[in-house]
């Protein structure tokens, strides 16, 4: 057991997989010699060589497309989008080629796409997005989003070992801010939800960085016992865990950092409306970024991203209902 940052946990999982399985290769822009834009693969080239830690041309479609090709002949590629925003350039390969391959012809595509996502640091409209819902809407792609260092490692191990394409949403804002105990060696975290804090009066459902916002916002909130459910996996969505929390708490606030419309939280809200109607003691409340590009200037960005105050206010309102 070691104390690792979220970023170190990701590095650790990658290193362990490269050591354990010669089929694993890491590919992306500047991941080799430079060690990655966020230094996730710092020092990897020295240990594993430039073929397994591959600096690719600046071509996201090619990164995903060639990874698919390598995967169907037996490799386990781990692609890095330098920023999740750039997956738009590789969207077609991921959604049309990778996502539909197994369904159409029974050919599994075991690739992992690491997507450094999220805002909060003036990244502006092209370095702050949370594009996970794009892939939730595309059949055949799994989507996971760790919030803790332990899950960052365990989910990455599980993603790399999964026989399907997996979008691994790693939140940039958590890289060096979140630390935690991480078991040594390889361990796989299941693609299920986790109760970050148990409670009974209201449940806040979140994932990624919003789990921390939710925990802070509901810490000792008017003496209420507020549960925080960390989804961890968006595809598959742990419907049983969500419905269980709702059955116990009967009041729900769902937090997304992503733009509100059709976000992961919208799917969770729909699920609850359909399957937990008779457990509800109030409206299903959502807190998400409004449908605007994530602006650059700090006061503008703070006005858009869901923060502690907004989540707290939503919880208070719902508790009083």
């Amino acid at each position, binding site marked *: 057991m070691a104390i690792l940052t979220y970023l170190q946990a990701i590095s650790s999982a990658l290193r362990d997989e490269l050591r354990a399985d010669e089929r694993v290769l890491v590919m992306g822009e500047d991941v080799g010699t430079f060690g990655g834009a966020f230094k996730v693969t710092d020092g990897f080239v020295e240990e594993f060589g430039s073929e397994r830690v591959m600096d690719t041309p600046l071509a996201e479609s090619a990164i995903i497309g060639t990874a698919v090709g390598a995967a169907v002949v037996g490799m386990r590629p781990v692609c890095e989008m330098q920023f999740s925003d750039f997956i738009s350039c590789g969207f077609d390969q991921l959604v049309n080629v990778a996502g539909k391959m197994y369904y159409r012809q029974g050919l599994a595509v075991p690739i992992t796409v690491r997507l450094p996502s999220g805002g909060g640091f003036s990244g502006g409209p092209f370095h702050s997005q949370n594009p996970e819902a794009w892939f939730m809407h595309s059949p055949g792609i799994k989507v996971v989003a760790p919030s803790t260092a332990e899950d960052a490692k365990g989910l990455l191990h599980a993603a790399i070992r999964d026989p399907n394409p997996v979008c691994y949403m790693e939140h940039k804002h958590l890289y060096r801010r979140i630390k935690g105990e991480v078991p040594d060696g390889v361990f796989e975290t299941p693609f299920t939800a986790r109760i970050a804090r148990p409670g009974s009066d209201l449940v806040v459902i979140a994932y990624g960085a919003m789990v921390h916002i939710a925990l802070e916002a509901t810490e000792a909130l008017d003496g209420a016992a507020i549960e925080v459910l960390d989804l961890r996996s968006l595809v598959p969505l742990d419907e049983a865990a969500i419905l269980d929390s709702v059955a116990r708490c*009967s009041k729900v606030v769902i937090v997304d950092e992503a733009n509100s419309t059709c976000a992961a939280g919208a799917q969770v809200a729909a699920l609850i409306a359909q399957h937990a*109607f*008779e*457990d*509800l*003691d*109030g409206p299903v409340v959502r807190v998400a970024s409004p449908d605007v590009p994530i602006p650059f200037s700090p006061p503008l960005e703070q006005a858009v991203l869901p923060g502690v105050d907004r989540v707290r206010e939503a919880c208070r309102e719902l508790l*009083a*209902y």
Partner: protein
Amino acid sequence: MVDVTMPQMGVSVAEGTIVAWHVEPGDRIAADATICEISTDKIDTEVPAPASGVVAEIAVAVGETVEVGVVLARIAVGDGADARGGNGSAPAAGPPAASAPAASAPGVSAPGVSAPAAAGPAAAGPAPAGPPGEVPAAPPPAAGGNGRARRRYSPVVQRIAAEHDIDLTQVPGTGRDGRVRKPDVLAFIERAGSGVLEDPPLHIESPYRPDPTAAPSDAGGTLSRTRRQIGEHMKRSLETAATCTTWIEADMSHVEAARASLRLTALPFVARATIAALREHPALNATLEGERYTRHADINLGIAVSLGDDGLIVPVIHRAHELSVEGLSARIRDLARRARARELTPDEVRGGTFTITNPGQYGSIMATPIINQPQVGILDLEAVVKRAVVITDAAGNDAIAVRPMTILGLSWDHRALDGVQSAQFLAGIKCHLEGGTGA
């Protein structure tokens, strides 16, 4: 142009009678404000205006009885009404035109017809008997016609109630606007214990429940079920609340003069003064359940009504703050009559936020009423008796005068309030009764 029609006040009601108009042609009226009062064989009620605008026409006079759906009045809405107000044709300020309701109607409606909505049957046909299908905004009767707050339950509350066979009307709500929340119904189950299934308790705010099995004639001293339950309810209140009683003496000269001219009892005046004082002292318009103390925005005033040997019942005047003395009087009379006739609906005995009890007609002068749980106060009105009192004139000269006096008693829950609040509240009632504007 929006039609105001005779509402359907119950499935079987076919007609209604106009009791009073609150407006005259040319008056501006806001949506949901009372436009007239009607009487049907089921209920007397106020009719809220279906839209904001200017009253263009009153089609049915006071005392007339018409069928459900008949157009009672028309309201000019939209630009036409606004333009009319703005072009200086003196809508409400011209008493000569406005004082003759029926005659002024055509003259008023003509300019108002410019609103697009006026095209069609309303403009084409004569006033009464407009086709019911054309009524654009007649509110559903339950929504506001009788002033009762709608009570809705969340899915989980309904499910739990169904599972435990609970009558939700008996569960006090602690949520926003008195909503019954999941913790409320769970607490209710816990309080009721297992007995809830065989013997559902009486309404928490009213010990009364019609007893279909009738009074046992073989009773050799055994209490009737109703009596037993009234007893349990009263006992539980005394065990639950920290009950204190405070009295104040009020000079009823002002009230006596007014009620003589209106031919009313003192009760609606006291109710009106109590409502005004509750507005000034909202701490009294509240419920306390366990540790949850909730102040209520609406004043739902309970009035204890004796049923003779069958005990008593507390029907509730919902949104009583919206009523005048005359309106309160009419409502109290109606509720009392129907209480004795066993015609009250469950809606009419729940949701109270404060109660007045009035056993004073037999000459008693003071009492210590028991608080109607989970409210925090109950006002007792006893007899009005003439007494010699010292009065002080404007110049500060004292004199002895004969005045109609009464002693108002307030029992209050010391868990929720302190003596100073109840004293201030009583002083407020006194002030209003004596013609002042409150404390």
